[in-house]
């Protein structure tokens, strides 16, 4: 076992590992998931979109696709690829079964981090990471991985927030009081930070190494392996961007300026390059919100 895991409190690790199996989808998206999946002629674009807008569902669908159930020869880290290879129906069924199981007990799922803010933060980082990939001239077909990594980067906060609710409220308060990084407060008060918690999720779901590294190292991209460093740094930059512009919130509000310079250096961009992103990012988030709201409005009118 890895030394990080050894150092942390074993009982906390066990508690998180148990929780991962029944980790709920975000209720921000679940209505729309059910709507799309229950439509007989759901469009492939809508299906892809609705799954990718929920970090928990995305992770769980990828887990099932890569499971021994299908025993596919290569790891799949893209929903679009899965939809072509396994078919629309298969992916629809996976999403539906996951979403239904996941909604059970959703009421107590977000104790101290407000769910809608967490969702806005996640999508902002996903969209920004993808836009940054475009600025770095990453080929279109590889940009989706940046989106997924950004969307999922903070998954590790969900188990912390739910398994250790009281301590996590204190950690959020401490980070705010100190105007410092949340991971330090998490370590101090919960004993485990969301990077490690994220790795537990990634390992349990057998997600790709790239994904796991972006969960672990988005606060320390220099520690990522050389093959993944640029993607992880891009997610880290997107995360800072979301925090600086206060688009959504996942409790981490006070990035260090020196850290920002280090990351810009790894990615090879300047802060000025990020200027034109704001409208793109806000436009994408608006679109996603509209896409999700249509279902809710219909339901409320009925």
């Amino acid at each position: 076992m890895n030394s990080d895991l050894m150092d942390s409190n074993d009982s906390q690790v066990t508690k998180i590992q148990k929780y991962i199996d029944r980790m709920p989808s975000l209720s921000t998206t679940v209505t729309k998931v059910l709507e799309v999946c229950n439509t007989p002629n759901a469009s492939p674009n809508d299906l892809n979109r609705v799954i990718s807008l929920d970090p928990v569902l995305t992770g769980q669908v990828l887990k099932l696709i890569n499971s021994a159930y299908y025993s596919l020869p290569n790891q799949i880290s893209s929903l679009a690829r899965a939809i072509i290879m396994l078919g629309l129906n298969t992916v629809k069924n996976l999403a539906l079964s996951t979403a239904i199981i996941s909604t059970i007990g959703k009421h107590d799922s977000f104790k101290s981090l407000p769910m809608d803010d967490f969702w806005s933060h996640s999508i902002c980082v996903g969209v920004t990471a993808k836009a940054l990939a475009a600025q770095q001239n990453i080929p279109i077909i590889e940009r989706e991985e940046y989106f997924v990594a950004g969307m999922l980067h903070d998954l590790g906060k969900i188990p912390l927030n739910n398994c250790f609710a009281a301590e996590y409220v204190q950690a959020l308060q401490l980070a705010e009081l100190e105007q410092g990084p949340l991971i330090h407060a998490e370590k101090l008060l919960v004993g485990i930070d969301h990077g490690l918690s994220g790795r537990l999720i990634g390992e349990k779901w057998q997600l790709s190494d790239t994904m796991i590294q972006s969960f672990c190292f988005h606060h320390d991209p220099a520690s990522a392996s050389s093959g993944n460093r640029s993607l992880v740094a891009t997610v880290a930059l997107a995360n800072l961007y979301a925090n600086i512009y206060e688009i959504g919130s996942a409790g981490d509000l006070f990035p260090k300026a020196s850290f920002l310079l280090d990351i810009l250096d790894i990615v090879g961009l300047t802060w000025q390059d990020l200027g034109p992103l704001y409208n793109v990012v806000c436009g994408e988030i608006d679109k996603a919100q509209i896409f999700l709201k249509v279902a809710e409005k219909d339901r409320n009118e009925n």
Partner: protein
Amino acid sequence: MRIKFWGVRGSIPCPGPQTVKYGGNTACIELRFDDIDRLIIIDAGSGIRELGNYMMANDLPKGSIETDLYLSHTHWDHIMGFPFFVPLYLPTTKIRVHGPVTHEVDDTLETIVGGQMTYRYFPVRHVELAANIAYDHLKEDRFDLGDGITLTTKYLNHPILCLGYRFEYKGKVFCTSYDTEPYTNIFCTDPSDPSYDEGMDVEGEVVAKEQNQVMEQFLEGADFVVYDAQYTQAEYEDSKVGWGHSSMEYVVETAKRCRIKKMALFHHEPLRTDKQMDDLAKDYCCSGEDGGPEIFFAREGMEIIL
């Protein structure tokens, strides 16, 4: 290898004066390895009933029946004959049923295939069957079946999980490739559509092309392929895209590209009459005398020796 067709239709049996020549039973193929006395059956459509009767008359007198049944998938036209397969009712029969299962909570191959045998559908329940039946959930893989037979399985493009089979024995290759249609980019390709997404469009294009190539590698150089050709290209384009079946035009071209030696067009549209099939044969079938593949419509009772 000796291959015999006991059922060649798609979707539903269609017996009658219009289908006497090509046959009206749904999918069932017998695969014999005479020199090692092995029998493999592919699919349990309505054609398996006649095969069972044949086995009772010809195999049973030589000893108890032992066979492997490989299901392409669990759509009803491929499993409906199972309860009528008489060897299941003999305590001496050993049968292993292999096939893919679509991911739905709690479904197993046994409940899907054997589930036809409950009093609500059938007078005999699955638990009352005398034979020794084992079920095996199959995935994409490569298997050593013993006696020098190898099997490669490949996921196909059908609305539920469906497998193509590639059997190799003594240097000869026999493949099944049904029910399936070519992979296409199913994502929106029109940039003016509000749901358009460039990433999905580009990836859909790349993955579809790549999966068609993987499929062609699976069929490459086969001595004999049984290929889904339910529709003409015009029928396919008109209203059947996404139904999980191929067009004759597409599979004929595929046979050429993959240097397939012999190909049977299979899973015939149930509405197709013998007369219409004969007419289509003029357009799509060929003798192979020009060095290209030999192509014909599969007929019930037809036997191919490799």
